[in-house]
Structures are given as C-alpha cells and as structure tokens.
C-alpha cells in the first residue's frame, strides 16, 4: 500500500501502545476504507487503553466505513468525523458510541491562525 495519511494514521496508532484517552474502553473496531472497488480494512483491538492495530478482516463490535479520500481528511485533522457521519459520508455499523471513542484518536485540525489575545504569553500550553 502507498503511504498516504490513512496508512500513516494507522501505522502511527500501532506504535502508541497505550492510549490513556481509551483507558476505559475494551472493544474491537474495524475501519473499512474504500477506494474505487477496493476496501482496505484495519482492526483496532482496544483493551483498557492498549491499542493493537492489525489489517484485514476481523469480527468487530462496530465497523466504521468511509471513502479513502474522506478518511485521508480525517487523518490529517481536516475533516470532522461527527459532521461527516451526519452528512452521510461516514457510516457506523454496530455500536455507534464507538465513533465517539475513536474520535478521540483523530488529530486536531491544522491551525488556521494563532490564538488571539493570549498568543503572547497568555496561552500557557505545554
């Protein structure tokens, strides 16, 4: 597979090991990413914050489906997954809560501009 934002997202996710934002979650989520007639599948096995990523078919508690270009946008932080779901561009089969969970893994949008007033010393962001 080529390297694109989707591939890179799942590859990086597989190196995180423990993701504290998912500490309460134990679930298997599959992502079905389609392009033309081809569907690539990634499977996230989440066990109290430990995330294992594998490719290929697997039984899952929920399946999130999206076109590759859409998911590239999500992986770059440019597309909001919840809005995409409401737009009909993204689907969730099974337990819909899983999307809320997975949304925590998606990156933030590219910054449009520096944060105003505190852009000086106010934003004590580490």
């Amino acid at each position, binding site marked *: 597979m080529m390297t694109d934002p989707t591939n890179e997202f799942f590859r990086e996710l597989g190196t995180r090991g423990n993701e504290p*934002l998912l500490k309460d979650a134990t679930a298997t989520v599959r992502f079905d990413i389609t392009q033309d007639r081809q569907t690539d599948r990634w499977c996230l096995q989440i066990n109290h914050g430990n995330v294992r990523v594998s490719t290929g078919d697997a039984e899952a508690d929920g399946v999130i489906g999206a076109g590759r270009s859409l998911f590239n946008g999500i992986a770059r932080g440019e597309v*909001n997954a919840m809005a995409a779901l409401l737009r009909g561009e993204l*689907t969730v089969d099974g337990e819909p809560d899983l999307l809320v969970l997975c949304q925590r893994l998606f990156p933030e949008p590219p910054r449009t501009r520096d944060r105003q007033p505190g852009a000086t010393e106010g934003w*004590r962001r580490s």
Partner: protein
Amino acid sequence: MFSYDTRFLSRWVLTTDSRRLTALSTDDVRYYETKFFLVPGTGTVYVDATLSVIRQRAVAEGFREQLTILNHDDKPVSLDVRIEVGSDFADLFEVKDALRKKGKYYARAEPGRLLLGYERESFRRETEISSSQPVQIAEDGLTFAVTVEPHGEWSTDLRVTPTIRWPGGQRRVLSSRRNRDPGDMDENLREWVADAPQLECDWESLGRTYRRSLVDLAALRFSPLIAGSQSLPAAGLPWFMTMFGRDSIFTSLQALPFTPELAATTLKVLGRWQGTRVDDFRDEDPGRILHEMRYGELSAFEERPHTPYYGTADATPLYVVLLDEYERWTGDTTLVSQLELEARAALDWIDRYADLTGNGYISYQRRNEETGLENQCWKDSWDSISYRDGRLPGFPRATAELQGYAYDAKLRGARLARLVWNDPAYASRLEEEAADLKRRFNDDFWIEDGRYYALALDANGDQVDALASNNGHLLWSGIVDESRADSVVGHLLGPRLFSGWGIRTLAEGERRYNPIGYHVGTVWPFDNSFVAWGLRRYGFKDEAAQVAAGILDAAEFFQGRLPEAFGGYHRSLTRYPVQFPTACSPQAWSTGAPLLLLRTMLGLEPIGDHLIVDPALPVGIGRLELLDIPGRWGRVDAFGRGRVEVDTGPQLRAQLGEQAAAPPVSRPRRADPAGPRATRTDPARRSPPTTGR
C-alpha cells in the same frame, strides 16, 4: 415535528369533504400525548354537527396519530378524509435565522406509505408516513374514502417516522424513544414519578409545582444520537432539545436529591465528548466540556460549529463540581474513579487553556468569530456584562462567577483526589491553588465603595463594576470571604436586586437595568435557586427561605411551570410575575429550580453517610414532608414546618405572606433558626450542619 434539530413534518392538515375542522377541545393527556376533539367546518358560531373527529397524537418512535370519526346520525355517512402532508426538512438554525435550503426535495408515493425526502450531496433525511387503513397515497397527501355506519365509528393509525439514510442504503430511525410505544412511555413516566421522593405539603401549590417539575424533567430527558439509550436533561423544548454542557450540569445539580441518575448520565456523556484537541472552529481545547451538540444540516456541513461546539467557559469547572456533589449524595466512587482522567483534564483546562490573559483567572473570547458565541458565561446575551455606566467591556472577559466555579472545582477535585484517586500530593496542590485564587479574587474583584464583587474583570484587569446577581453564585461557590458575606447578602436581598419575587440579574440603578431585559433586570428562577443554595452555605437561612418563597409563589402563577425568566418589576407594582417572552417552555433549569429550592429550604446536606436536615421554611408553607430521599443512606425522610417570616411587601397574596406586612428587607436579618429536624433512624442527623453558622 422536529427530531434531532431537523423538522421532519411541517404540514399536516386534516380535511373532511375538503373542509377544515374546528377544535372543540384539546387535552394534553401526557407530555408525549395530546387529544383533540373536532367537528367538521369552520367559521360559524354554532356547531351543529353529526360527526365528531378525535385526533390522538403521541410522540413515540417518531409520531403517531390515531384518527377516529364518529357518526352520531341515524344515517350512514360517506366522506372524503384527506391529510395534506409536507416537510421542509428545515434545520433549527434555518428556522431561527430564516435561511434558504441548498438541497433538493423528493417525494415517493409507494404502496401503503408515503416517503418525503431531502437530499444535499450525501446528506439525506426522510420522513415515512403510513396508515393502518387502506389509503390512496399521493406525493402531497393521504386520502381515505370513508363510510361510517349510523352511530358507528371509523379509525386509522397514522405513523410518521423520521429517518436518516446513508447513500449505501443504511437507515436509522431518528428518535430519542426508539422502539417505544406510548404504553411503554406511560409506564416509564409512572415509574419515574414513583421513584422520586414523595412530597406532602400544607401549601397545595407547592405540591402542584413539584409534580409539574418531575413530569417536565421526564419530558426533557434526551438520548444523544450516539450515546446508547441513556438519557440526560436537555436544555428546553422545543428549541434546545439537545445536549448542553452548562444546562445539563446545572439541572443535574438541582435534581440530585430527587433523581441522581440524571447526574450520572450527564457526567458520563459529557465526559465521553470532552475536548481532546485544539480546534478553533469549534472553540475546542483539550479538557474542555462541550457547550452544545446539534445534528441538523448546517452542523453536518460545518456551516455551524455544533458537532459539538465547545464555546463555554463555565461547563468545565462545573463538571468537576457536579462529579463531587454526585459522590457526596450517592457514594458512587466507581464512577468518580472511572472519570478520573476526565476530571483531571477539566481541572487542567482551567489553568492551561482558560487563562487567556495570563492573570490567573478564567476568561473567554471566542476563536470562531463568525459563528462562535461571544458571551461564554450563562448570561450569554450581548449586553449582559456591563460597567455601571452602561459601557460594555472588550474581550477577553473574566466574569466573577467563573472564578467561583474554578475555586469550588479545585477544592472538590482535591477531595476526590484524596478520597478516590489516591493522590494526596495533587489534592494539596489543588488546595493551595484554590486558597491563592480566593485571596487574589477577594483583592481584585472586591469593590470597596460599593461593598460587593465586580461583575467581571476586563481585558486590562480593571473591574467591570455593575452590581449583578453573580454575587449570589459566588456565595454558592464559597469564594466569598466570611467577613464580606453580610455585605453581599445585604445587596442580594436589598431593594436594588430583590424584587419581592426574586433576585434580579442586574441591579436597579445600573445604566443598563431594564426589568424586561433578558439578562439585565429579569428574574431567573434557576439563578435564584443557586443563590439560595449559596445563602444556605454561608448560614443565611432566613434569606434563603425568602428567596425560595418568592420564586415558589411566582410558580403558582405559572401553574407550577416556571418560565426561563420573568420581569424584574417590584412585586408591589405588578402583583403578579410578568412573564418574559421566551422561546422555551419547559426549560430544564427552571424546571429544576423548585427542586433545588426544596433542598435549600429543608437544609438537606449530605455529610459522610448521613443526610443532614436543617429546615428553614417560610411561614405560609405550613408543614412540609419530603419522603424517601435517595442517597448513600438508602432512603430517608425530611420534615419541616414553616417558621421563617418572610416579607412579601404590603397587601400581597395570603399563601406565603399572611403574617407579613413589612416592606421588603433591605438588610439580612437573622431569625431563630430552630426548626424540627428529620429523624428516621440516625441521631447523627440531628447534629448541626457543618456549613451553617
């Protein structure tokens, strides 16, 4: 019919033989059910009909209507019964702002059902309409050829189901009450009311208000689209039937002694949606609790930022306050443990993201300047935050109550860190920060010549010096120096803020004061309920009773359903509370206000595994019993008798003021606080409350 912020049915007109009908009566059977009795024809004074039409509507999975026609004549009758239908699939934002649709409509008449649809790119919403009786279906309506025998009846069941459809063919019913029959809802409401404490009171009006509050709270339960089947309080019907951080938290706090499960769901769902990244469009930061979630077309296409929108400065500290208060009532340390990460992230947000000017206070300024919210405190209208002379400060604004919430959140977070998270070092750090915040706040916000706290600090750190009800929230949070409480209470119950019905949002005499201005002079029942709690916290029992008396007395004029706000006119001027023209009824935190006022009047306070009861009730209330209050103690009862003489001004209504004839108080008085205590089992509950004086 609206569902999840989209209007799925905008036209639903019944005719018989092409004539409209006249409604003889309407009966709101339940919050989810209404019955209309009608006769054919309109426009005449006399009704001389031999036909009756009954339309019984229920909100279930979508909407159902049982249409029944009764023939009272000796002859059979044949009729063309027609229902015109249509949907504009308007997003709530479009309805409010009168915007144009960008997509295409379609309609399909299929055997046995009519499908109305709206499509914009991959966005698709459909309304399915079907009937239990044979029907002729056209794209704009349903027609029945009906014959009713002499003294007979004809009936059909109509179903209207809102759905979301994905291009791949998946379909989902958009209903907060999926798979629910009206019968189930009946049972559910009965259980809901039966599960809440029972109220017995000499003052009948209070009983009515209490029942109304419980039923309205049931109606306002809302299951977020993707949060399973759990429900939490939505903000208000019909415009705010969605998740709101601030409203859901305040309402859950008010309802804790009555229906603690609402708080549990609110904490779980808001925790799940807690911000994790910096997103300027949504005003999101890591740790921030959401402001508002919306599911309509404009949110889907990111023309509005509500998926969800995070622009609120108070929900995040209040989240920690609710978590701690919830544990104090229920003893549910499991949930506190599960939400440790979320609570810590919320506490982190206060110092790391909310201190926009670097001066150590929470302040707010939207980053989404097009569709974000300007005022991110509960007084969110454009002119709510002003100087005495009416000028409006620039941004960022650090309103006073936000600092109180932050102070309270740190102390409560510290308690949970010791009790549940096993992190005493973190607890000590939070306590030191809280103490430092209180010290600084009392220096920077205190207005020496007025002897009250400023409404806000502006971007330069100067005081925004108008006198407002926010001072009462400061009492609730405990950030007020003991030595200053007398002055603050004197203002709250004084003639500039206290109208006789309640405490005004902004004091009379301020340049922007207007008794019918949204946040600049009206009285908000929700605001008052938290101020009453604050008064109790500092030991001002009689003053808390006075506030409760005014608001609960007002509730009687609204048949037990308090509006969001009412006019700030003095009670002696209007004799009745003047309703503010408001969009939502019921409104969740107004619905919750009588509940919190009951708590404050009875002086209910969980201490350890016991419930302290320390009543201070207005005289006119007579005997009050609240039975089976749920909590970590199991169930206990609380009793009280009205002993506090409240001032209702001259010649006012008898119920609560029959013995009072003095003018409204301008200074707090301390009366004999003694009142009977609750006693069921535990003598420890007789001990005086630790927060009292």
